[in-house]
């Protein structure tokens, strides 16, 4: 990754977020990035507070209803330090689908008539067959896609359980694809369940084994999101404000621990075990 790159993060909100990779981007102190993610959560907040991003592209940003509207987003966007470019959720998905299909745009029936058309400069086209008006949703080809998956083999064939989100389209759309995986499996295991493979290895540039690589966000069937951690984080922001609380958070969780294992030690094994048990209970069929 280079400064100024357009980066897209897989998963959605606090699920399957490539947080181990985001943490490394922050440790390398990249700047001038554009970060795209359909629903943006704490990874976007940390990128803003670290000065890594100048622009975010998203359909929605905050952690979730119980934690209210993101104060970090409000601070950086209302002060003009970070631009927030908003697209509808479907339009966002179609941008990656179009890029993944190798076409410059896809016709769609969404966003029409709304002020979201103007934000991203979406144009309309006339259907050459019927004359009907359609939105021409432009393809988005990011420089780098950061993804976190359940399983992959050493060739980069990636398997995902549960929600597919937009990862498969993002991997096709991006120039460079960097993947972390919960588990490294053998080539034979991939071949036994090829139906579970959503990203073929020839799309992937780098693969890293990173168990708990989305924590404190969740991974389907593996571990639940750490809502207590979100509550502590937002309570500190409420108490001490932006950027003080987030700057300290970055020092403690991003720049402090030398390795990802040391980072996980900040939470402790018991907490991680609880998160695993909660996930197993919620996905009994897995």
């Amino acid at each position: 990754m280079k400064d100024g790159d357009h980066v897209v993060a897989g998963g959605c909100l606090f699920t399957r977020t490539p947080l181990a990779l985001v943490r490394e981007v922050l440790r390398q102190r990249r700047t001038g990035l554009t970060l795209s993610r359909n629903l943006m959560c704490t990874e976007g907040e940390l990128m803003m507070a670290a000065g890594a991003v100048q622009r975010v592209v998203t359909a929605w940003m905050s952690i979730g209803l119980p934690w209210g509207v993101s104060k970090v987003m409000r601070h950086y966007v209302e002060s003009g330090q970070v631009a927030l470019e908003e697209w509808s959720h479907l339009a966002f998905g179609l941008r990656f689908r179009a890029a993944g299909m190798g076409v410059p745009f896809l016709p769609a029936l969404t966003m029409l008539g709304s002020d979201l058309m103007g934000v991203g400069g979406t144009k309309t086209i006339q259907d050459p067959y019927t004359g009907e008006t359609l939105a021409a949703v432009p393809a988005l080809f990011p420089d780098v896609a950061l993804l976190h998956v359940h399983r992959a083999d050493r060739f980069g064939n990636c398997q995902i359980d549960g929600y597919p989100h937009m990862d498969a389209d993002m991997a096709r759309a991006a120039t460079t694809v960097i993947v972390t995986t919960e588990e490294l499996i053998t080539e034979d295991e991939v071949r036994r369940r090829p139906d579970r493979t959503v990203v073929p290895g020839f799309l992937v540039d780098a693969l890293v084994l990173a168990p708990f690589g989305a924590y404190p966000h969740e991974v389907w069937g593996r571990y639940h999101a750490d809502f207590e951690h979100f509550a502590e984080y937002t309570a500190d922001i409420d108490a001490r404000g932006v950027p003080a609380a987030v700057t300290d958070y970055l020092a403690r969780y991003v720049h402090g621990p030398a390795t990802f294992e040391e980072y996980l030690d900040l939470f402790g094994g018991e907490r991680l075990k609880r998160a695993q048990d909660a996930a197993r209970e919620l996905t009994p069929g897995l």
Partner: protein
Amino acid sequence: MATVTPSELLAVMGSRQLKDDTTVFAGVGVPLLAAALARQRQAPRLTMVIEGGIIGPQIKPGRLPISTNEMRAAHRAQMLPGITDTFLFAQRGFLDYGFMGGAQIDMYGNINTSVVGRDYWKPKVRLPGTGGANDIASLCREVIILTAHEKRRFVPRVDFVTSPGWLDGDGARRRAGLLFGGVSRVVTTLGILGFDPTTRRLRIEATHPGATVQQMRDNTGFELGEAATVAVTEPPTDDELTLLRALDPERRFLG
């Protein structure tokens, strides 16, 4: 029965709008609770659809999802098609209802969940954004909005049209290229608003028990018309409230 909270009233009144053997695109919080309640009463074959990419989930009492794309939202779901494909079911016309909340709403039922202030790039207040709301409002066959009835929410013109209602009047959706749909009702904590079929402006269609037409007008930032007859809704029944409260025993969304 104990006092009914505003969120309980919205959930009950909202749930009654949903017919059996239909599909509903529901946002998390009160809309999802209302849809789950409808499934337990008049609409057992109602299929819920959630934007995280979920078809046909059930709601486990006490385990209400906080977001549309976490594990809990997919409890006993029938299909997880991915986000883009879930919305494309709506674009194809398969979603009967869109069921959503609203931050700021205007006389044509347009909704703003993006920015307060006239300049999008220099907002006075930055709100979370559309999420799937624009797509639901654009692509479902009928949109029902559930919201608290407050003057600051009901403004003559929204600062920013995040989700299209009737835009600026009759025919505007079609001119913009939207093929079907539109807001049919706004269920509030005071009553039910519909739209005048010729002007497409909000008007009063019913009051909830104890609320008045005048109260609805006083809490709206623009002139509200009135249907030829204004009905009075039936108060929430013990059965509705018991089922609803069992879904959210921690009162995460019911207040």
